């Protein structure tokens, strides 16, 4: 897209967008709050379920494209030993995501890179193609946020079909980035109007840079073997929380689940912190301890990914540090690395 188009919307834009889309029979995901108080994107059928004020959602977007568990294949064995393969994939329904944050949208960039690497991952791509991402620029980043340190910004528009400025419950300015975004605007019809010529985007929100990924990479390049890995992973439990909540982590496992003559092949999330992630069938494990696994997580994000895909695989959402059961702090670790 050449030049960005800007639209204006009223304070109630989110709710009216939900209603308009639902009315058009389009699936909508919008922020809702669960009983336990968690804010998350969920399928909504009316604007009443939607909440409007939140720092970020509990979950990133990845599970919408790489579900926690998805059926890749169904099969049924016949009497004569023949095998019937399925399912015939149903045409994907249009989906609009409303109200994610720019960092989460930006993470789709990394997922796209992986899932479009030589081979186009069909299950992923189908979902990606049908989805319009409408994200909400951040005006008040949380203390854990550090997108600016990893090349993002609270107003970053990467992979957002539409980026909305001004919050969910105030008059808003919408920046249209893609054709999907255009279509979205069309659907909203009269609740939005093109912004007057010369309308300026708000001043970018300040967010100090907490470390320098370049410097970090420099140290990582030299320190595959270092006591750092052992010392800093002593507390790590090797659970999957950080990866599972990370918008860019995308490792998966493929398993078959079968009854007598039929079954499914499923793709489930997996995680490099797990002890058995790389265990060979022979019993040999290239990453035998938590230190090696913890190193993989950091190396993958801050060294391998930049080398292979030109960008760190972290968008600075801060979920991993917020949710770690033992207070393992990526930011602190990176700062530590930088200081070495």
């Amino acid at each position: 897209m050449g030049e960005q188009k800007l639209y204006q919307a009223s304070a109630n834009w989110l709710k009216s967008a939900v209603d308009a889309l639902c009315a058009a029979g389009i699936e909508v995901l919008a922020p809702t709050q669960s009983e336990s108080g968690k804010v998350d994107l969920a399928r909504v059928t009316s604007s009443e379920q939607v909440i409007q004020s939140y720092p970020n959602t509990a979950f990133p977007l990845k599970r919408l494209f790489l579900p926690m568990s998805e059926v890749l294949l169904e099969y049924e064995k016949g009497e004569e030993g023949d095998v019937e393969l399925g399912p015939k994939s149903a045409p994907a329904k249009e989906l609009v995501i409303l109200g994610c944050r720019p960092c989460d949208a930006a993470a789709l960039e990394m997922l796209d890179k992986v899932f479009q690497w030589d081979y186009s991952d069909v299950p992923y791509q189908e979902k990606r193609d049908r989805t319009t991402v409408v994200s909400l620029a951040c005006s008040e980043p949380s203390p854990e946020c550090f997108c600016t340190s990893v090349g993002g910004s609270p107003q970053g528009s990467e992979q957002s079909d539409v980026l909305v400025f001004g919050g969910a419950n105030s008059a808003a300015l919408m920046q249209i980035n893609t054709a999907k975004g255009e279509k979205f605007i069309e659907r909203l019809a009269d609740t939005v109007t093109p912004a007057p010529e010369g309308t300026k985007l708000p001043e970018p929100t300040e967010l100090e840079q907490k470390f320098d990924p370049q410097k970090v990479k420099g140290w990582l390049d030299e320190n595959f073997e270092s006591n750092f890995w052992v010392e800093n992973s002593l507390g790590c439990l090797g659970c999957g929380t950080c990866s599972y909540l990370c918008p860019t982590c995308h490792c998966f496992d493929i398993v078959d689940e079968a009854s007598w003559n039929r079954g499914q092949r499923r793709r489930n999330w997996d995680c490099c912190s797990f002890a058995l992630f790389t265990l060979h069938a022979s019993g040999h494990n290239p990453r035998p301890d938590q230190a090696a696994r913890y190193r993989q997580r950091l190396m993958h994000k801050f060294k391998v990914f930049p080398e292979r895909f030109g960008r760190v695989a972290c968008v600075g959402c801060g979920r991993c540090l917020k949710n770690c059961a033992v207070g393992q702090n990526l930011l602190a670790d990176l700062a530590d690395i930088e200081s070495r």
Partner: protein
Amino acid sequence: MTEETIKLTIDNQEVEAEAGQTILDAAKTLGIEIPTLCYHPAVPSAGACRICVVEITAGARGALVPACAYPVQEGLGIQSNSERVRQSRKMTLQLLLARSPGAKIIREMAKEYGCEELRLERKDDDCIMCGLCVRVCQQIIGTAAVCFAGRGPDREVSTPYKLLSDVCIGCGACAFVCPTEAIDPAEFCSNPLEKIANEFNCGLDNRTPVHIPFPQAVPNKPVIDRENCIRFQTGGCGACQSVCPAEAIDYDMEDKTVQEDVGAIIVATGYKLFDTEVFEEYGYGRYPDVVTSLEFERMVSASGPTDGQLYRPSDGKEPKTIVFLQCIGSRREKGGVPYCSKICCMYTAKHTILYKHKVHDGQAFVFYMDVRSGGKNYEQFVRRVLTEKMATYLRGRVSKVFPRNGQLVVRGADTLSGGQVEITADMVVLAPAIQPSPGVQDLAQKLRIGYDQHGFLLEAHPKLRPVETNTAGVFLAGACHSPQDIPDCVAQASAAASKALGLVSHKQLTREPTIGVVNELSCNGCFECENVCAYGAIEHKELRDREGDLTATLAHINEGLCQGCGACAVTCRSKSIEVQGYRDDQMFAAINAISR
């Protein structure tokens, strides 16, 4: 100990004896019999009765000396039956005969020595005052319950002051040694011993504490019943030890728990009879002439308490009418057992024959439900009883047995004639149901073999593995498995024996392959498995690195001990134990197959 041997001649025969032996002992080795009365090998001799006198003819001053007390000396020459000796004995016997003419042994001896009736004043006392009882009581039993009392002609053996003795332990040693059967401790013992019922004869007669259990016992040797033995109860007596020439009795022997490692076990614990007392209507236990078939079996046995004479218990008269009742408890859902005891029909038929042999003019009746005579020649046997009119068979149940005028009335139904019958009989014989031996369930649980609701032990398979059990190495024989007669028992026992031999005749044991195996890669070494293993098959295996340092202690299953029950496999959370043949993937596949 250097044994000094002494040479002497008795009746012109040379003999070697040990120092300290008596002439009597030496004569015994030559087979020369010297009569004795006051002598008992277990009791120190007193030479009191002088019936054992012998004549010294050489080596010492010629004299008559008591052989039982006179020690052997080198070069001694003895005549045991010289004229002089015979005269002396005759004299002695004459005196004794006068004192105790009723004593059998004295009469017999006197006859042998040609004594006549004496003119001396007759005393009618069997006691010959030999004092053997006093000696045995004092010196052997150590009780001194009896002694000589009085002087001169009033001298007698008695308890002190002729009172009932509470010192007497009633051991009966005195009676045992008394040559003339003149003493009976029951007369003066204040706490006489109870008679011990002879179990083998169903309590129909008595036995001593030291006894041979039954005529065919193997080994055919006596045992001491400690419950009743005075030695064990009070520390006294010891008579059997002192009399046992083989010195086989050792009271200090303890019961031993014998532990044997065996390769096979054959269970042949047999049966017991149904407790007939529960059926009050038959009067067993109330009327002495109602007996069980087993008691009857003993009564007519030549080795039984009556030496094969049939007497009825109440008054010892020969029973002229006898009624046999079959199925006492058998085939009786209520109060009895539902199954047929199988052997009763046949032994009852046998009993009628036996009865006819003993009481030629007797009349036998049999109440029966069905006569089941399956088996080789069995039907012919029963036919013989019927055709030869050994007994009258009445099909029906007996409702009541009750006494009338010193006899028993058996009232029952004869279903064939359709009428009530009453038979007045001298004796009634009940054929109780067969049940497994008491305590067999405990044994089965110990051996980990099964039993049915009646307690009969279970075979592994009724057709294919009839003498094996579900526990490898344990086999069944006989009535513990089901009611069966001797031929069946023997057949089964032979089969079991050959199975057992088959098992132990191999150098190596083949065992079931279903045993547990530990996956050492995932075992945590928590040993929760060890706690649940009933066989102690889980061992601790130490893993060491190249330097020999202990790296881990893991579970290891001893394949010889493991029985493959799988308790450990379920207990192991990490699923580190698999039971071969029931591996998890096999179980999984089996479960999967239900969704077929």
